[in-house]
């Protein structure tokens, strides 16, 4: 799915209705998912890039900002080539439209899989370069000079020989009438001439996020809007059986009680009244078929299913034969839990359903998928379903799903006027769509020198793609479930990787920050560490010997371990662990330094991360993603665990689904290895790298190998 984009986008040029220059950019995509099958409207006034008569550049951004910095990095790509300051660029959320705004890597309009920069690296720079070329031509025409004698700088075309200059705003109307330049006249800048890309430009979204002005989905206010609190069936697939509507309506401020297939909503003047109304309603549930599901059943099911061969994801050499002839054999089972996302902004969606249309105000990673689903349930044509996208108070993959919008619309269909549906934190945790539970079996054979001559890895777990994007779930193989497992960075001559799809009953599964890699890199990087230990070799030296063919991976490993002082003695009870990975087109290595106390408690002191993501668009954003991504992964490794009892999720809020806090946060250092390759994705890579570095460090301190997450510290008691 994540084929690197090397096709060139198509550009159209025209005038804006109100004057100015419009650049329409259409990037060809390989196929469209079902909800994007129909062509979009033939006329859409929202072009990708507009330059007005004041020289203000508006970039209609199809990607959403959820903290990853895309609202700064994407404008940087455009501004670099267009030769304008970032302060001249205004941003607009794009409307849902797969024709104009599809993410060419994901095939529809979506923000996810660390793809934004990778997908738009070339098209946005080309659009900027075309704009610059047109504006220069317009100025050259006006002056009667050759365009090659002119140049653009900071939103002005300059003719140095005569010392003349014209700001873009005065050139846009003329530029809009020029023919589209041929590609040989549109030159992308030589990276050595970049003045913006590679600098730590200030985040464009930051100022409004420190004074309370930034509007997230949950902050939308629509005239005459009511607030809805919801209770969803505690068991997935259950239904409300009885609701004391009279008692709910007796609560001051409550206006209405709404029942839908799987939930009850209380509509009120404000959230507190709605929540009190829900309590007063004393809802009884018909639990449905999943009322007896427990975590242990799901794990047992995975254990059994993983004994049978799966669909082959990779097969090279003859792993079976090599294993049989190995001097030493190592077998292991790794397990990773269900995880919730717990974005700080709880799920919410504001909806106004009318006979002829429907408006949604929501922060979503998938506007067209949302629009399509809402069109289906309301019977309204897609163009009558308006999605007003908002800033996201965290995404982490949760907002790649439209379940919250669907629920809100079903409620709003019964409400006269707009309604904001807000999930409590308890609903948010207990009705998340979870990162799947994965159950992995691995075997390796070492030769007499300790070198791995056989490697087998069977991944078992839910397929998200089979539900989400069935076109790419081909022949039973979920590429995401094996990403990071099928292509380990090491030299492994005989490798066999397969996948067994096992769907847990009554547990919806979905993407999480770095799903495939986050799971598989923990497994692969732990197991390679096991092999190093079995070979009685230093974990770094062992990895280096297997990375001879992979210079970029080797380099990040060298930098991380050198900066971390690998091999330098640490006080008793402390140790280091390492990981190296290639995921999302980015190479990354982490060294974790931690302490294990006598009672088994873990204190991570320091994380050192070396990164080669090719061209680094905004180095400070990359450092921020390392810091945040590592903590997101660390939270999961230490605490993240969604369990089921009698079909119900047992966790409910931050006391039993905890997050790292400031007093537990380690110092994190980021080192960029400069590269000239096209940029890799970055929002998810650091999350994947941290868990194995932590458990490998625990092994270094205690000799105990952690193969199940989250880390059970009771296993580490008295191990130091």
């Amino acid at each position, binding site marked *: 799915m994540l084929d690197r984009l090397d096709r060139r986008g198509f550009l159209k040029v025209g005038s804006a209705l109100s004057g100015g220059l419009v650049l329409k950019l259409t990037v060809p995509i390989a196929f469209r998912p079902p909800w994007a099958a129909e062509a979009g409207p033939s006329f859409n006034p929202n072009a990708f890039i507009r330059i007005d008569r004041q020289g203000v550049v508006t970039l209609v951004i199809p990607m959403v*900002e959820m903290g990853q910095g895309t609202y700064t990095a994407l404008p940087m790509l455009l501004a670099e080539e267009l030769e304008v300051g970032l302060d001249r660029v205004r941003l607009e959320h794009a409307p849902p439209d797969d024709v104009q705004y599809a993410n060419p890597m994901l095939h529809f309009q979506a923000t996810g899989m660390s793809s934004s920069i990778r997908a738009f690296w070339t098209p946005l720079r080309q659009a900027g370069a075309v704009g610059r070329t047109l504006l220069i031509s317009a100025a050259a025409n006006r002056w009667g000079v050759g365009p090659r004698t002119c140049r653009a700088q900071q939103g002005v075309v300059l003719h140095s020989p005569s010392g003349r200059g014209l700001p873009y705003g005065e050139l846009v109307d003329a530029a809009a009438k020029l023919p589209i330049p041929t590609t040989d006249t549109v030159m992308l800048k030589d990276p050595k001439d970049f003045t913006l890309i590679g600098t730590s430009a200030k985040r464009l979204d930051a100022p409004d996020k*420190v004074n309370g*002005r930034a509007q997230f989905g949950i902050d939308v206010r629509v005239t005459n809007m009511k607030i809805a609190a919801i209770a969803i069936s505690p068991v997935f697939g259950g239904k409300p059986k009885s609701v004391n509507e009279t008692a709910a*309506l007796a609560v001051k401020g409550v206006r209405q009680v709404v029942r839908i297939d799987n939930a009850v909503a209380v509509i009120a003047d404000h959230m507190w009244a709605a929540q009190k109304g829900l309590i007063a309603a004393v809802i009884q549930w018909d639990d449905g078929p999943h009322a007896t599901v427990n975590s242990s059943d799901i794990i047992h099911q995975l254990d059994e299913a993983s004994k049978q061969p799966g669909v082959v994801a990779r097969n090279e050499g003859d792993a079976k034969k090599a294993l049989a002839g190995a001097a030493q054999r190592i077998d292991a089972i790794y397990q990773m839990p269900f995880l919730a996302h717990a*974005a700080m*902004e709880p799920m919410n969606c504001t909806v106004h359903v009318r006979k002829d249309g429907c408006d949604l105000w929501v922060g979503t990673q998938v506007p067209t998928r949302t629009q399509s689903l809402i069109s289906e349930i309301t019977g309204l044509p897609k163009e009558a379903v308006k999605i007003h996208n908002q800033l996201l108070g965290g995404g982490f993959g949760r907002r790649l799903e439209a379940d919250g919008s669907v629920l809100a619309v079903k409620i709003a269909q019964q409400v006269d006027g707009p309604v904001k549906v807000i999930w409590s934190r308890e609903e948010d945790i207990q009705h998340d769509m979870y990162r799947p539970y994965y159950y992995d079996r691995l075997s390796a054979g070492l030769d007499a020198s300790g070198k791995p001559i056989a490697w087998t890895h069977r991944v078992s777990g839910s397929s998200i793609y089979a539900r989400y994007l069935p076109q790419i779930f081909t022949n039973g193989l979920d590429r995401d479930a094996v990403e990071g497992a099928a292509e380990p960075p090491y030299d492994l001559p005989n490798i066999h990787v397969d996948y067994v799809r096992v769907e847990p009953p009554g547990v919806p599964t979905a993407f999480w920050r770095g799903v495939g890699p986050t799971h598989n890199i923990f497994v692969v990087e732990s197991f390679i560490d096991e092999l190093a230990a079995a070979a009685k070799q230093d974990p770094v030296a062992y990895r280096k010997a297997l990375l001879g063919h992979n210079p970029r991976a080797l380099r990040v490993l060298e930098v991380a371990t050198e900066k971390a002082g690998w091999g330098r003695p640490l006080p008793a009870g402390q140790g280091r662990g390492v990981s190296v990975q290639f995921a999302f087109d980015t190479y990354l290595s982490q060294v974790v330094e931690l302490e294990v106390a006598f009672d088994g408690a873990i204190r991570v002191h320091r994380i050192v991360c070396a990164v080669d993501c090719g061209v680094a668009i905004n180095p400070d954003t990359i450092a*921020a993603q390392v810091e945040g991504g590592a903590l997101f992964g660390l939270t999961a490794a230490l605490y993240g665990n969604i369990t089921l009892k009698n079909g119900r999720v047992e966790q409910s*809020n931050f006391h039993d689904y905890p997050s790292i806090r400031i*007093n537990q946060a380690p110092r994190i250092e980021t080192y960029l290895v400069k590269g000239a390759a096209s940029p890799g994705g970055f929002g998810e890579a650091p999350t994947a790298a941290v868990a194995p570095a932590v458990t490998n460090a625990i092994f270094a301190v205690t000799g105990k190998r952690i193969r199940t997450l989250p880390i059970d510290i009771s296993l580490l008691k008295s191990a130091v």
Partner: protein
Amino acid sequence: MKGRRKPECSTGVTKANSGPRGAHMAFTIKVNETAHSVDVDADTPLLWVLRDVLGMYGTKFGCGIALCGACAVHVDGVPMRSCVTPIGSIGDKAITTIEAVGKTPQGKALQQAWLDLEVVQCGYCQSGQIMSAAALLTNKPKPSDADIDEAMSGNICRCGTYQRIRAAIHRAAGTKED
């Protein structure tokens, strides 16, 4: 909320709202030096009064049970979790929210430090982070790292901006990390 219908009219329940909480009560609260009259039950958390009644959305809902700090405000200068602070408990105390904290020297310095060090990612928790930090600096103008841990450990950031939060507090205070 002018022109709002009374609940009994809208619901058709005539004998509604009996008992101590149900009494029709109006509260006058002082938010950012402006007085507001609100007609809600005494147990209504300040958070929902600010957001849903007064339309001040800078103060965020995160957990509802004082575990995450997204809803932090100052009540007479003391950091409080507005999600568990009933409107009836406030009286005439002065409430300060993220919308006005920039008018205090501590708040202003913190907001600038937050921008200088690019603290924010998604930004959702940052209102609460800055409110907690402003209360810290009011009480301890030169905080140690231990002071920061104590004052800030009630605020969760899922984006993981803690390292920069710590550095930004030190920057605003003119102190250094231990």
